[in-house]
């Protein structure tokens, strides 16, 4: 681990280019073969304004590229929100879904799939319910007339379990041949629905939230000292906490509404970052974004490659992330974080 620390700048740079490299490689991966020549042709076609093979064009520009962009955005957003929540709640077991965002968004999506059988309504409803879940957490916190982190955490547990129950209720009520599978697949997460206009609309909250967290990242170090100390160090604890929660919620809700519930990224990727770069949020927050992006691009590649009917991402993130996490735990012997 010391070796990681000594070359911190090197690792930082490496992490930053990792999603770019992986993203570039991913263009070539998938059932439909794409070669370097195709890319050159595409670039030439774009340059000269001439047409090219429409299938190639479509595969690269409308299938592969949006998935890669969406994967990077979703992975980065989930990881960065998870890292921020871990610091904010001073609890390493917290993830981006902490305040019920994922369950709320899942419920919104399921509701949309039952009420209207078009995917169009899934995004706004899922995003809206994700935000609503966090608002409810605040409301529960206010009931106890306390703004302490622990009441928010409890609120998150309560709201999360209520929405999970509501999701089960919707599954129970859903048409088992048509709606139920749609809900189940949505909940397992996928990037296959990636289209540019969705990426653009969902990308706004994801980018805004992640950028907000990057801007205030050093303050997470101060908040990690606990409320009393953070206050005595000159931080307006409540204002900063609310800002961070709003940013993380926007980023997570934006991610979940386009990709479904992809677990594990918001919990484990931040820890991978902690093991490599350390706990200083000044470095960790950007690194978590890059690693989350790289991780999800990689997982999506694997999902495309291992079977003809893409395996849902939620399954793969856990199956791949778990063993890798064990490897990191062993290498670092649980130290340094």
């Amino acid at each position, binding site marked *: 681990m010391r070796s990681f*620390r000594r070359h911190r700048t090197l690792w930082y740079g490496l992490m930053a280019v990792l999603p770019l490299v992986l993203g570039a490689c991913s263009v070539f991966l998938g059932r439909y073969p794409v070669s370097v020549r195709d890319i050159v042709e595409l670039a030439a076609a774009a340059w000269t304004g001439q047409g090219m093979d429409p299938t190639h064009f479509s595969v690269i520009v409308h299938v592969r590229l949006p998935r890669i962009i969406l994967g990077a955005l979703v992975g980065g957003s989930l990881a960065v929100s998870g890292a921020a929540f871990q*610091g904010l709640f*001073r*609890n*390493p077991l917290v993830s981006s879904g902490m305040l019920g965002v994922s369950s709320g968004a899942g419920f919104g999506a399921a509701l949309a799939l039952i009420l209207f059988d078009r995917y169009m309504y899934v995004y706004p409803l899922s995003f809206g319910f994700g935000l609503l879940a966090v608002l409810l957490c605040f409301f529960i916190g206010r009931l106890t007339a306390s703004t302490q982190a622990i009441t928010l955490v409890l609120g998150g547990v309560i709201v999360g379990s209520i929405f999970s129950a509501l999701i089960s209720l919707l599954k129970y009520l859903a048409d088992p041949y048509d709606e139920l599978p749609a809900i189940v697949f949505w909940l397992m997460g996928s990037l296959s629905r990636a289209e540019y206009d969705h990426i653009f609309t969902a990308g706004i909250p994801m980018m805004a939230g992640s950028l907000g967290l990057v*801007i*205030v*990242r*050093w*303050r997470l*170090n*101060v908040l*990690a*000292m*606990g409320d*009393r*100390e953070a*206050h*005595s*160090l*000159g*931080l*307006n*604890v409540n204002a*900063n906490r609310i800002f961070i929660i709003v940013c993380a919620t926007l980023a997570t809700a934006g991610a979940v509404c386009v990709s479904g519930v992809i677990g594990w990224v918001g919990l484990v990727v931040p820890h991978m970052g*902690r093991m490599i770069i*350390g*706990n*200083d949020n*000044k470095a960790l927050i950007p690194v978590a974004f890059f690693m989350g992006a790289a991780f999800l691009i990689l997982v999506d590649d694997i999902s495309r490659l291992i079977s003809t009917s893409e395996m849902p991402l939620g399954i793969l993130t856990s199956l791949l992330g778990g063993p890798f996490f064990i490897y990191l735990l062993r290498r670092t012997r649980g*130290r*340094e*974080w």
Partner: protein
Amino acid sequence: MAADPDQTLIEMKNAAFSFGRIPVFRQVNLKIARGEVFCLLGPNGCGKTTLIDCMLGIHKLDTGRLCLMGQSRPRHSPKETARVMAYVPQKHDRHFSFSVLDLLLLGRTPYIAFYASPGKPDIEKAKKILELFGLSHLMHRDYTRLSGGETQLVMIMRALIQETPVIVMDEPTSHLDFRHELIVLETLARLIRERRITLVMATHFPNHAFYFENAGIPVNVAFMGNQSVKPSGTPSRALTQENLARFYHIETLVMTHTLPGKGPIKQIIPIKTLDRKTKGTP
């Protein structure tokens, strides 16, 4: 060396605070001047920490006023407070392993804009303080693995990097062994002398007040109990056998010993507890 009575840094006027319906203190009046040690004594649960929290602005006073550097506001902002007082906590919960340097840099919070992080000058400041304490070798160490004594010194360093005229300490030497207790006290005495720092400390050990007095530093003692705070003057005046019996219900012996070349040294030796019923409270 003397305290500067003209320069009152912290003043509480007619202050009262309660948790809901449970009053903690009322009608507290106190003044803390530059260069002095203000020693708050009181039994467990009397509200010393709450009083300190009110000074730090963590709790808002129910009534009364708090003046910092002559400025009186209904509520001082955390940033404003953190430029007057640096706080060394009694107990610090360690959640994430930061390096000692990262921890020290947190002391720069009141001077850093919300979007920024500490820069080179801040790192230089941290390095200088580490050198001053002779602890440069700790710079890149994981602070969660430091010993209790080292942690306390790091916390004091963090307070110094905050560059405030006042340092507030809650039980500065709890959990420390004999030697480290003395190291912390010596460090504090040196800082008060060399940097004219004002120290506000809540302590369970009346001997700490004598330690600073023996070192030639102006000390004011205040007793806290029965929801009030009683400023009682210098340790020699306040910490008499009678007062200790009344206040702590213990029999003590206040000893004066003259060390050759060092002047008189005063210490309290506890003898035995007294029955609470026979004696009143001050």
